[in-house]
């Protein structure tokens, strides 16, 4: 397991992980998606869950973030069973960005990001100067300070995703769960959002996300969780995990794995049926 941190921030080394699933079984109604799964999220790194459509990667992320309640097993957050914690206390430790969230029409960027302070507020103490400072920092960190007065629905897809990440940051947690943060984004904007995620990681956050694009996952993650049919096929550093055999096993994809010409990570070149010249 990869636990090497590049953040310089002292991570809690006495514990192997801050977030872990132990023997969880999760499903929707009678349909079981994940059966008796164990996983531990290493602290201080970016972990990305990949796998074919319907393999249960979003289900796993939603289970880890207590959006879904496992029928068996437990999710452990900082040593506590997440189901026994108050949902408000969980929200102070774990920030979550669901897939493709929608803001009410006309809501401004500053107001959306301000909602991220909710777990720290109460009926009497609905807004303080602390909240304003944190929101200001979250806006600056995600590079959307200039957009603060604009309505969220008037922004481009990439900007909008930055704003949502900003809201999650305003929650003030160092554990972030992002469900497909690059959905609906073109490659340039997807890179832009993932660069931002990497900045957050550099600043000391533990990140868990679901991604569809394997090459982006390889480039931006320190730890990959490869899933198929509701269970984990492999976990580890992209260099160790991503092989042609694994890709075939997980996705049924014929691919060549080469060295990334601009990075130190593997690059996946898929082999389709046409326009292919194999030696």
């Amino acid at each position, binding site marked *: 397991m990869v636990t090497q941190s590049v953040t310089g921030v002292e991570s809690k080394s006495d514990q192997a992980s801050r977030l872990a699933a132990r023997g969880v079984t999760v499903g929707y109604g009678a349909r079981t998606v994940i059966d008796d799964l164990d996983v531990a999220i290493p602290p201080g790194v970016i972990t990305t869950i990949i796998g074919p459509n319907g393999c249960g990667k979003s289900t796993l992320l939603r289970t880890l973030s207590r959006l879904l309640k496992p029928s068996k097993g437990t999710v452990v957050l900082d040593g506590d069973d997440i189901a026994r914690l108050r949902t408000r206390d969980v929200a102070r430790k774990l920030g979550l960005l669901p897939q493709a969230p929608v803001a009410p029409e006309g809501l401004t960027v500053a107001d959306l990001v301000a*909602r991220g302070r909710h777990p720290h507020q109460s009926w009497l103490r609905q807004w303080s100067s602390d909240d304003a400072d944190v929101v200001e920092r979250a806006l600056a960190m995600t590079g959307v300070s200039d957009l603060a007065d604009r309505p969220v629905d008037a922004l481009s897809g990439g900007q909008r995703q930055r704003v949502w990440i900003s809201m999650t940051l305003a929650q003030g947690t160092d554990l972030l769960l992002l469900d497909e943060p690059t959905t609906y984004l073109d490659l340039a904007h997807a890179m832009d959002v993932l660069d931002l995620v990497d900045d957050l990681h550099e600043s000391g956050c533990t990140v868990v996300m679901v991604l569809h694009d394997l090459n982006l996952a390889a480039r931006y993650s320190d730890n990959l969780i490869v899933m198929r049919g509701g269970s984990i096929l492999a976990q580890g550093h992209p260099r160790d995990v991503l092989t042609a055999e694994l890709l075939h096993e997980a996705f049924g994809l014929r691919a060549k794995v080469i060295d990334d010409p601009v990075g130190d990570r593997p690059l996946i070149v898929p082999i389709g049926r046409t326009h292919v010249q194999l030696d």
Partner: protein
Amino acid sequence: MNPRMNRTDVKPSVTPGVRLGQVSFVWRPWIVCVSLLLAAATFLVFCLSIGVGDFPIRLPQVIATLLGRGEQVDEFVIMDLRMPRALAGVVVGIALGVSGALTQSIARNPLASPDVLGITNGASAVAVFLVTVSGGTAAAIVSSVGLSAAALMGGLGTGLLVYFLAWRRGIDGLRLILIGISVSAVMEALTTWLLVTADIRDVAQAQAWLVGSLDDRSWDEVQVAVWGTLVLLVVVAGAAFQFKPMHLGDDVAAGLGVRYSAVRAVLLLCAVLLAGVAVSAAGPVPFVALVAPQVAMRLARCPTPPMVASALVGALLLTGSDLVARTALPVSLPVGVVTAAIGGPFLVYLLVRANRR
């Protein structure tokens, strides 16, 4: 303690806060101004409405009497005869405005209102049933709990039925509306069937109830509505803070630490009860619950229905409609006719606007 503004230490883009001792909240001067203006306008129309009648009383005298410094004749006419009606208008307007704001927020859809969700038609069906079906049981129910209370139960029952039918691992706004419309249509069909088959004298009485009216309100009826509304408003105010993140969707709200199922169930129940209280006090006054939150949103420039402003717009719309109904036209009309005449075109405007986007 003096209010202290904390606005200089941050850039103006982030909303400033206000602190009063232990209490701190977001300072939005525009919404406060709009709400104060609405409250003033409602009070003015309320006083004008009290002054109008066979024995007209001018505005200064009305205000003097309300402050306890009026003449005895005025005091009798105002406090005993006209106050119940005027107060019923304000309370029913507030209840409908808040009920609409809650249902629209919960469904995340501007077309959701107690009317659309079947609460109003459910109450009507029960009321018409009790009026038109002559028989021991119906008469016994009416005489023991009263027509209003029976209608309230009908509305509440229908609202809960819609909620449970729409529940499928959570509440989806569109599903709630579709099921509400369907159940509402069934209730309406039932009402029509009862009216067609009933005795013509009963039909006249039922029709009068169905249009919605503030005529002949007694202090007893109004008191029930006032206290019911007050209690429900306290509950709504208590839950409103937890409700704020729910405009962003269930998953985001859960991520922010909100137990959204519980909050939503409580608030939807409040919405149903508020609509029920309104219907039982004034009959099914159409469109106020739909229009008030939408007007409030545009006046207060809020992306989501603001509770206080919605309540005040509801009160203003209902008291204003009642005043128009009694003065502007040669015949005195029930208030429901006027609110429908204002609300109908506004609904069309909303739909056309949504289509063009």
